[in-house]
């Protein structure tokens, strides 16, 4: 009867809690590439992303979560990125998104 669930399972809280998140890494990332903060969430990077069209990878969502101090699984997610640079060709804010991808991987590699 392993399929039976009584609603007592322990779920990780879904809320992003800025107070308890460690924003050090995210601040470092924003200090190195302040242009990431100019993201307007248009989704062009995700739309053009080869990895995102073949897998669940959503680059816009991952880098937004990283900015909020949510690093869990961000590094693994970023490993789906092939650093092809297509996203950089389309970003309307002119963000070096490929550079952002590399920076996130570098900063979160030891996380």
């Amino acid at each position, binding site marked *: 009867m392993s399929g039976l669930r009584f609603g007592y399972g322990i779920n990780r809280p*879904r*809320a*992003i*809690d*800025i*107070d308890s998140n460690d924003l050090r890494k995210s601040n470092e990332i*924003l200090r190195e590439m*302040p*242009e990431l*903060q*100019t*993201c*307007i*969430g248009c989704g062009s990077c995700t739309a053009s992303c080869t990895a995102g069209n073949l897998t669940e990878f959503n680059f*816009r*969502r991952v880098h*937004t*979560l990283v*900015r*909020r101090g*949510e690093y869990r699984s961000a590094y693994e997610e970023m490993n789906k990125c092939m650093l092809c640079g297509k996203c950089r060709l389309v970003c309307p*804010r002119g963000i070096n998104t490929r550079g952002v991808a590399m920076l996130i991987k570098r900063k979160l590699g030891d996380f």
Partner: protein
Amino acid sequence: MKPKVVIAGGGAAGMAVALRLERLGVEPVIVEREERLGGKVRGWHKLFPTFTPAAEVLDPLVAQIGRRGIECRTGAAVEALSEHGVKLASGQTIEADAVVVATGFTLFDARRKEEYGYGIYDNVVTSADLERMMNEGAVRLADGSTPRRIALLHCVGSRDEKVCQRHCSKVCCITGVKQAIELKKMFPEADVFNFYMDIRMFGAGYEELYREAQQSYNIHFVRGRISEASPMINGRIQIKAEDTLTGRPLRMSIDMLVLLAGMRANDDNAALAASAGLALAPNGFMQSADPFLGAVRSPRRGIFYAGAVTAPKSLADTLAEASLTADAVMDYLNSVQR
């Protein structure tokens, strides 16, 4: 004899129309409800998007009104009007050859959004309060300390069926960007978050300022409306929202919450409209004769509009519109005199 035009409202719109009409050979009379000229701009510290001190725009207008000897009836409210003049609340009437309605708008009362705690707990202020604090020279928390984390909330009393305000107030997005930068300049160590539903940067230089707020001031823009603010035991404020770009609920504690209060229609628009057979737009602002060629005309000949009485407008748009209004008044005066 010079034709006489009564202008209801001595804010930026009314003053600019009066000055223009006087140059064109008309005798304008300004009727202002408050004791002083200047309207809402009087309480403002600096103007978007250039951070120009509001006094630099307002003071020359007021000074010119004095220099040109334009008649001003302050402390007098217009109760009824027609194309032949106005009736004041005192019962007095002023006859005229045309009337301009430039009575502006009312600031949304943020207490009506109880969930944000304005007027209930400390350190929840409106955008207008913040301007006043900056004018007084100090932005401080209630206990005199400096804030470490500040949130600004867009669309308070705008785009909200719950308070019967469907319209967008147009100027609060850019005000929020301006104030976020000002706060960050005052408190470089503080984190500043803007919570928005849409960012509407309609004017010249606005989008550029928004980008600068992000790039140079590291201001965090979170797309999501704060659902509630509650006081914490340590005196801070906890806010909840959805970070809609990640699809996750988000919460944090802050020291100060700035509510970007919207522009709503004056309560007495309906009575003024009824007295003169004018029409109201569904949001309660005055309805122009036509949105394109008749934006400053009412549906009634001889009655004109200027400024935010017809819709939320920036100061720059209001001042530009004032010339159009004066122009339309002149056309009308010339047509009836011949």
